[in-house]
């Protein structure tokens, strides 16, 4: 919010703008910018200054001014969206005295306000206070130059001497006001009520709005005159022919104004202030100041009597502050006299003091103060948070609990990094195109773009995107991501649910199925998981239609009986750029199987012997079946069986493939004799050849 340095100087002695900005930033609000404005003063001061020495001693300093763009904190709107409010803050941290000029109203005894206008407020919850004054025989024209300048410096457009006066008072005190042409108000009666569904209004800037019962309006007996707290209507507009005006200074409920402002899409300097809340005591100050300014500049007679609808008077709060709590919370002991001085400078009253308790009365303009902690913040910031020294806490030496989820995540990532993969972080979102292929995605109500319309139900679509983006620069890509996916869950009886779980997905470009399998094996082994096996993925015809995996080139990764993920080639129908192999593992399932337990296997002292064995089998025979037969036939003395070659084609019978194994024989308690090994080897060959189609190569 923008403030004029010269205007602030009217109320209090101030340091130079740069120094003031520094102090404000350290004790109250951040000053975003300081800008110089205006022309240097002229020599002929008496003519140029245009100062009108009114009874309220409003003087325009003339010449150079500075604009301070102050980031008033949202909870300080009520007292600091005004020059007086900021001046009061400055008084607190510069320890100077605030000088608010007093005003004096001249009411005309012969004219009584209640003869001119009546006010009815339908619901006191919507409008906590409504005050009105009438000024008769005004002369509407342009404002004095100095008022126009002040408005312009603060970003407002001068309109006429009546409207400008109301805006001036809003910038000065924080209380928004509105002025109506009394002669345009039917039956001279103002009603504060909710709009009826279907009612309309044309505002001062000629825009039309449709109203409904959520919106508070100021109306006469016929139709709405203004949207309460937001914007005035054209019907009772002040124009150059206006003779009698009604000044409105009210306190509308912040929630009602906020709702109305959002509904109509209409935000104004007035609505902004009402939304943040205003002190009801301010309505009276505001209306009297405005009346005085109008009387001095537009002339006119102020009728006597203030129309004041104020059913529930707001009283100052009292808060009990314990000095010991102040010390404990800040971690610094502040002298009692300093504490009291700070509170007094801020406008708080000390009602009673009986150590360790201090009872403080809070002025009504501080809507943000209601707890002892609020007072402690006030004391701390004016005293200066810098003055609190850093000090380590004294606490019990309890070591932190190990977070096992993070523990296994870290190990997993390290293993993949060691295997040559690069970790990526992708967006949690996918677009419409991807959602058609990767089904079950949760939709976002207010997405930033079409490409971010859904939450990702899989990590795969974005990994594929990574390949497209990087393919220009890299031929071989090995990436992985460990992140959350989101799936639409069946909604049960109004219980809205989204399933959220971590997946671990990795991608290798090229003909890399067995390479990926090796990685998965290595990973699961290092995580202490055994009993891993790979089952051919056999989707149902329905699943096939939507499957992302290439037919007959995909496996389900299983541990014991449980499927924990998939490993396979992505169908070229889904991804054309290049062949890619992906492993996609449910990390939540994986974590439950991880174990740190590793048993040391004693190394046999006795030498191992290797015999090779090659067997010709039909093409559709699975390697695992041959391996199993060898292991079962060989028994305990077969320590390991290693497939080292698969060959089909030239030199091999059609329809068959050649599998070559190293069989490693070893005993734990003796050196195996050649004869023993031969015997077992022959047994294996015999078992393999039990199948007439299998032939062991000799």
């Amino acid at each position, binding site marked *: 919010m923008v403030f004029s340095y010269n205007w602030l100087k009217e109320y209090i002695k101030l340091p130079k703008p740069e120094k003031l900005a520094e102090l404000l*930033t350290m*004790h*109250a*609000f*951040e000053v975003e910018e300081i800008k110089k404005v205006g022309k240097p003063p002229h020599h002929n001061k008496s003519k140029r200054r245009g100062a009108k020495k009114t009874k309220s001693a409003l003087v325009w300093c003339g010449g150079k001014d500075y604009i301070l763009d102050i980031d008033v*904190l*949202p909870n*300080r709107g009520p007292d600091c969206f005004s020059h007086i409010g900021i001046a009061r803050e400055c008084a607190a941290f510069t320890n100077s005295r605030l000088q608010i000029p007093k005003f004096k109203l001249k009411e005309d005894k012969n004219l009584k306000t209640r003869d001119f206008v009546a006010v009815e407020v339908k619901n006191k919850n919507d409008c906590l206070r409504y005050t009105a004054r009438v000024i008769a025989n005004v002369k509407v024209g342009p404002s004095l130059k100095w008022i126009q300048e002040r408005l312009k410096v603060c970003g407002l457009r001068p309109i006429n001497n009546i409207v400008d006066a109301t805006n001036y008072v809003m910038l000065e005190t924080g209380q928004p006001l509105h002025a109506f042409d009394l002669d345009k108000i039917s039956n001279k009666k103002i009603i504060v009520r909710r709009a009826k569904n279907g009612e309309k209004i044309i505002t001062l800037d000629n825009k039309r709005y449709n109203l409904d019962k959520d919106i508070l309006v100021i109306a006469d007996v016929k139709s709405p005159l203004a949207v309460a707290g937001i914007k005035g209507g054209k019907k009772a507009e002040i124009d150059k022919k206006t003779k009698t005006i009604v000044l409105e200074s009210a306190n509308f409920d912040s929630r009602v104004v*906020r709702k109305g402002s959002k509904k109509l899409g209409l935000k104004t300097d007035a609505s902004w202030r009402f*939304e943040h809340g205003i002190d009801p005591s301010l309505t009276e100050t505001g209306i009297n100041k405005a009346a005085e300014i109008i009387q001095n500049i537009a002339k006119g007679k102020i009728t006597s009597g203030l129309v004041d609808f104020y059913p529930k008077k707001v009283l100052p709060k009292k808060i009990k502050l314990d000095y010991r*709590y102040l010390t*404990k*919370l*800040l*971690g*610094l002991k502040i002298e009692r006299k300093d504490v009291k001085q700070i509170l007094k400078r801020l406008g708080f009253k000390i009602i009673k003091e009986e150590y360790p308790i201090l009872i403080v009365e809070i002025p009504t303009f501080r809507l943000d103060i209601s707890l002892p*902690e609020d007072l*402690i*913040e006030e004391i*701390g910031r004016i005293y200066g*948070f*810098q003055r*609190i*020294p*850093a*000090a*380590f*806490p004294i*606490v019990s*030496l*309890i*070591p932190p*609990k190990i*977070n096992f989820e993070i523990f296994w995540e*870290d190990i997993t*990532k*390290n293993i*993949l*990094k060691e295997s*040559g993969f*690069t*970790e*990526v*972080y992708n*967006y*949690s979102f996918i677009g419409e195109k991807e959602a058609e292929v990767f089904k079950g995605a949760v*939709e*976002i*109500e*207010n997405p*930033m773009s079409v490409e*971010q319309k859904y*939450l990702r139900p899989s990590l795969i679509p974005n990994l594929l*995107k990574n390949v497209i983006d*990087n393919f220009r*620069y890299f031929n071989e890509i090995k990436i992985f991501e460990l992140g959350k996916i989101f799936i639409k869950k069946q909604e049960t009886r109004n219980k*809205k*649910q*989204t399933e*959220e779980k971590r997946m671990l997905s990795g991608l290798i470009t090229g003909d890399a199925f067995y390479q990926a399998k090796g990685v998965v094996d290595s990973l699961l082994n290092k995580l202490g998981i055994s009993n891993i096996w790979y089952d051919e993925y056999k989707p149902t015809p329905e699943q096939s239609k939507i499957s992302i995996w290439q037919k007959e080139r995909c496996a389900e990764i299983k541990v014991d009986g449980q499927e924990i993920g998939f490993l396979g080639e992505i169908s070229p129908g889904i991804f054309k750029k290049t062949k890619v192999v992906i492993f996609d593992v449910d990390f939540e399932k994986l974590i439950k199987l991880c174990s740190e337990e590793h048993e040391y296997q004693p190394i046999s002292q006795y030498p191992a012997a290797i015999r090779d064995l090659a067997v010709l089998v039909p093409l559709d025979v699975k390697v695992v079946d041959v391996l199993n037969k060898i292991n079962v036939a060989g028994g305990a003395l077969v320590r390991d069986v290693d497939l080292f070659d698969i060959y089909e084609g030239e030199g091999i019978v059609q329809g068959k493939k050649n599998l070559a194994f190293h069989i490693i024989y070893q005993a734990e308690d003796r050196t195996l004799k050649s004869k023993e090994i031969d015997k077992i080897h022959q047994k294996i060959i015999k078992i393999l050849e039990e199948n007439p189609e299998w032939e062991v190569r000799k």
Partner: protein
Amino acid sequence: MRKPLKIKTKGDKIDVTVPGEKLTVGHLHPLTLVKRKIEEIFQAMGFSVIEGPEVENEWYNFDALNIPKDHPARDMWDTFYLKNGLLLRTHTSPVQIRYMEKNNPPFRIIVPGRIFRHEATDASHETNFYQVEGLMVDKDVSVANFKAIIEEFLSRFFGKQVKSRLRPSFFPFTEPNFEVDMTCLVCKGKGCSTCSKTGWIELMGAGMVHPNVLKAGGINPHLFEKDGGWQGFAFGIGMDRLAMMKYKINDIRLFYSGDLRFLEQF
């Protein structure tokens, strides 16, 4: 693709200036490295690391944190809503509420995690990014304690002696509130173009936990008369921001680009 250089040594003499063979190594994401470092430093000070869900409901994300509906304070966070009425968390604070509900004080925790903001993206703003929040609740924890802990963390993280500066701020879930600045690493506090000549860099928000928030977590705030009562501090800092400062990265969007030319530098 260029073939890797594989030269067999010939003869007795070896030309030691021939480049060594390139290894294929993998890389962890810079945010993973930063997250681990943060966890390491805080765990060394006795903080447990807690994580929680990314999809949340309004109560945990706003109401429990003293941010009521129809209040201008809600405007401080631009939120993604899901069609089913849930939302994507705008900070990791809801996890702190969940933790407080299930654990009694005293405790100290940090909560790292991905958060979401409905904002236009640019070099310093993204729709999803990472935050780490901290919460310490005990009998006597004060602003002075927060200062010491955060200075220790920052000094260890950046590997240089760092000082902190607290300024007034506003958050609905803490009172008193601060903006926390740290010494500018470029000029060591003397003033330069990076810190707009102030010597300080704006870093994070913090404050003493608001009694309403403690109550929402089922913890008794300070009741001095009965001498029961707990108090504590909370802070929130952007992990992407820390990573950008540490590695001198100038665009947050690089973290989510999947660009291997960027990722392979770590």
